[in-house]
């Protein structure tokens, strides 16, 4: 007689992607300097930081590095006396670079494989925000072949094509209950691809102060035919059909950076980078399910991101022929406006501190290590869409190491 509208079950939109997913870990030397260094031709990581500087690298090289990252986030519901922590899970941002060009020629080729965006957050299946999110595992791997050319002895330009391979796995509890009282669950899992570019200009003035202007384009990553699985009581299976798929779009923003490198002495150089991260492209997030039911409708959620920015200052000191020491500080402004903070990336303005060390035992080999720390400010928020109301506080720890072979 009476049809019950099950759409109420999913009145809150399913997933909320985006924001503080930028991972600033693309080269051990630069990480040790808080991520500054676009205006320095330091090493092969310039493929990422500034393709225009690649041609000024003295040697050909390959390097590989990893930065096991711990994202330690805590949440306390407004009015609650219980603090909940994410599980200790280690995300593996990595980077691989190769740079080659005929000696004393005007051009070099480069290849970079790195992870500029990602997130690994697991709050557990029974935390107080489980109906907003239980876990997220997001990886974006960029492949970037690059060409860098010296226009003059002091000016270089470079550009690379970017192919992104993205993986996303999102899980959330649904507020309907099995006979034993436990909640239903949704899992979205998909793979996507996107394309973009990375171009840079490097200028070394007569005073040896260097400048950089770099633009990394946005990469709209399309997830097609991802699996949408719902673990629900049998009586609701008609509303959440098995074998369903979804399409979605994940817009990864463009970044424009201005860099300055200032040599303080023969062995010491200061680097400053200002970056403008154009998150404004992230206005909404839509999920389009292959099979819709009254309970499972396509969603379009407002995100309303503004642009983010960061300011980073680093120093590199060559203590001896074999040993280099580095340190850096930074500050980043969050793109997430009040009311849009979510548990998958509980973003806020953040401080950055870093330190690094480099060791060159032989002419060919180099080892670099870094430690990167972010203190994301405490932020009390009530999400407009889900009603999740509480305070987030996050600390990020990322030690890292890389090996380089040069010739």
């Amino acid at each position, binding site marked *: *007689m009476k049809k019950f509208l099950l759409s*109420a079950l999913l009145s809150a939109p399913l997933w909320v992607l985006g924001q503080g997913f930028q991972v600033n870990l693309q080269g051990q030397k630069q990480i040790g300097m808080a991520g500054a260094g676009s205006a320095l031709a330091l090493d092969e990581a310039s493929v990422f930081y500034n393709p225009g500087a690649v041609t000024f690298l003295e040697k050909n090289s390959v390097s590989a590095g990893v930065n*096991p990252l711990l994202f330690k986030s805590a949440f306390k519901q407004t009015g609650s006396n*219980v*603090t909940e922590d994410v599980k200790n899970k280690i995300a593996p941002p990595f980077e691989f670079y190769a740079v080659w060009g005929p000696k004393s020629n005007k051009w070099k080729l480069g290849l970079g494989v790195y992870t500029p965006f990602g997130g690994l957050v697991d709050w557990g299946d029974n935390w107080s925000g489980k109906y*907003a999110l239980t876990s997220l595992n997001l990886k974006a791997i960029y492949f970037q072949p690059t060409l860098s050319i010296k226009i003059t002895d002091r000016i270089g330009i470079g550009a690379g094509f970017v192919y992104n391979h993205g993986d996303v796995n999102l899980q959330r509890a649904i507020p309907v209950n099995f006979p034993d009282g436990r909640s239903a669950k949704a899992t979205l899992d998909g793979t996507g691809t996107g394309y973009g570019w990375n171009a840079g200009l490097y200028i070394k003035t007569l005073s040896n102060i260097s400048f950089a202007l770099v633009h990394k384009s946005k990469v709209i990553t399309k997830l097609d035919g991802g699996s949408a699985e719902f673990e629900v009581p049998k009586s609701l299976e008609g509303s959440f059909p098995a074998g369903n798929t979804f399409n979605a779009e994940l817009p990864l923003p463009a970044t424009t950076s201005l860099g300055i490198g200032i040599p303080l002495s023969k062995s010491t150089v200061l680097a400053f980078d200002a970056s403008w991260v154009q998150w404004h492209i992230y206005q909404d997030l839509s999920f389009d399910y292959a099979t819709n039911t009254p309970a499972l409708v396509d969603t379009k959620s407002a995100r309303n991101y503004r642009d983010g920015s960061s300011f980073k200052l680093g120093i590199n000191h060559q203590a001896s022929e074999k040993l280099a020491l580095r340190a850096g500080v930074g500050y980043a402004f969050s793109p997430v406006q009040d009311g849009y903070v979510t548990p998958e990336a509980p973003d806020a303005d953040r401080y950055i501190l870093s330190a690094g060390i480099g060791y060159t035992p032989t002419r060919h080999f180099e080892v670099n290590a870094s430690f990167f720390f972010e203190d994301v400010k405490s932020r009390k928020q009530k999400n407009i869409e*889900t009603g999740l109301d509480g*305070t987030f*506080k996050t600390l990020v720890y990322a030690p890292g190491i890389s090996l380089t072979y040069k010739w």
Partner: protein
Amino acid sequence: MKRYILNSFVAAIILFAAACKPEIETPAGTTAGQANFSKYIAVGNSLTSGYADGGLYLEGQKVAYPNLIAAKMATVGGGAFTSAFFSEEHSNGSGYISLTALVNGTPTLTPVVDKLAIRDAAKHLDKYNGEIQNLGIPGMRVDLAFDPTLTFSAANPYFERLLPDAQVGKTNYFQFIQGRNHTFFSLWLGNNDVLGYALNGAVTVSTDPTTALTDKVTFSSLYANFLNVLTAAGQKGIVGTIPDVTAIPYFNTVTVAALLNAAKAINPAAAAIYIQTGTGAVRPATAEDLIRLPFQSEGIFGKPNGSGIPYGLHPLNPIENKWVLDKDEVIKLKDYVNSYNSSIKSLATSKGLAIADTYAYFNQVKTGINVQGVGINASFITGGAFSLDGVHLTPRGNAVIANVFIDAINAKYGSTVPNIDITQYRGVKFPN
């Protein structure tokens, strides 16, 4: 060797990070403010007792809003909180209804009849002898709390089970709640003074006082008596306003439009649903007329009478008055609720008490709210807040309302009783 180094490296990171957890400082759970929660008593009706799904049973008793509040008061000096729980062996108490099938959106509701706490053929319930602080009794009303005949204490099985045999039929609820040496109280009573009448289709049965509509002035003076005894020793406390009874799923699930659609599916010529109003008039029903939930399972809709006229579809065989709150009755009920609530608020204000405005809160629930990622609304079964009887709350509904009380207590007395994590409490159980 490489693996060993790698593992040590990972282990070192985890140890390091475990030691460097982010901290969030908040005042929750640090002070009772001007209140003293050492002995809290809860005065009320079925909502206070934890009644749900058309019955009183152990699972519901454990998540009754006063029990949830008391557990949180414990962090700021609250003492033990005792309730007349049914035993594990008789955990299904009075029995209740469960959802056993949901086919194309049509629910099948089945009574649970095992593990009952019925002690005799007259359907009396297992007695409870210990001291109790959850004093909620299903069916209790402000007027009947002062029952001068003292017979309600025998007639109401939920009251009867709490009394020693010697007191059955010899006391009333107003006497029952006194002398308990409380330091803090909650009073959420009065719903049944209008709901009993509404649930009977706005028909008062002269032999059944639970179907009466309590006079407004009487309500106010009796409510004042409650507050006088509960604050006699200067105790602090909280009162709850009465939700709009016409907004609950019981009156908003079987709609006139749904009935008409069902009729049209069989006979496309069906043009209107006919009802008999409270004045005895017969007219086509409109969206402003509310049909009671049990009409759905009664199986009389469309049945031809002796003259072959289908029930509810013809002026000569309308839906009887007892199944319907017609729009004039709805207006009358809303008026009574508003009157009771203004009495409750002004009396509580004059005593300096906290007020949990559940009337205002349920009006928000009716349009739908999102709380901590959970969408809650007043829909039957899927709304999450109301249990299968369409009147009483699910565990999730209890948790949400408990927070309304806690917020009002904290605001009034400067206490920091922690909020309840509502995501730990279920809505309706769906069959697997």
